[in-house]
């Protein structure tokens, strides 16, 4: 079985400060990890994914994520937060590379960037 945990329901950060949204996972095989963002009243938008290789993955809108196998984590980061980054963020995982149906989502973290 596979699972994803987003331990923080809410993260607040001041504009200009670095932000981190945490994600830990549990899979039986190799993890394939994704981050999505959801703006109010909108669908999910893909930010980035980790398949293999470099542990630091760069994505859209200046976001990056660091894969840490020993800690089974895939935290989302941005060096300098913008008010427009305020949104709901979802981490997702699967342990089968070629089966999109097996994707498991976390419960989401609401990020608020304060001006």
């Amino acid at each position, binding site marked *: 079985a596979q699972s994803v945990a987003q331990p923080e329901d809410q993260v607040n950060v001041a504009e200009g400060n670095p932000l981190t949204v945490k994600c830990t996972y549990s899979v039986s095989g190799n993890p*394939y990890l994704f981050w*999505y963002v959801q703006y109010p009243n909108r*669908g999910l938008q893909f930010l980035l994914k980790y398949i293999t290789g470099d542990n630091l993955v760069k994505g859209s809108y200046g976001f990056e994520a660091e894969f840490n196998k020993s800690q089974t984590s895939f935290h989302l980061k941005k060096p300098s937060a913008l008010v427009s980054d305020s949104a709901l963020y979802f981490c997702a995982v699967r342990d089968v590379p070629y089966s999109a*149906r097996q*994707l498991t989502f976390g419960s989401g973290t609401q990020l608020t960037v304060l001006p």
Partner: protein
Amino acid sequence: DVKVTQSSRYLVKRTGEKVFLECVQDMDHENMFWYRQDPGLGLRLIYFSYDVKMKEKGDIPEGYSVSREKKERFSLILESASTNQTSMYLCASSFPDRAVAEAFFGQGTRLTVV
């Protein structure tokens, strides 16, 4: 850009009604999905389709059915709507399973059953 379009942003239906949620994608994706999003629960897969007329149950299929008569269109059907089906419904599509592909989502339909 991939576009996944859901026919309604907001719907209000009465208990017992038959409800149709429509989704169309323009990228010729083989895979299409219906998810339900509830606060604190994340996204849960209702049904999945990997080809025309093909479907598989997801994690929470009870009370729902789907139809995929054309590759670009995937419909979710609530046979007899109930108040516990009040939720945000998200449609998604992706390339076939041979790729480590991300899913592309529609804007969501917020359904209220009264």
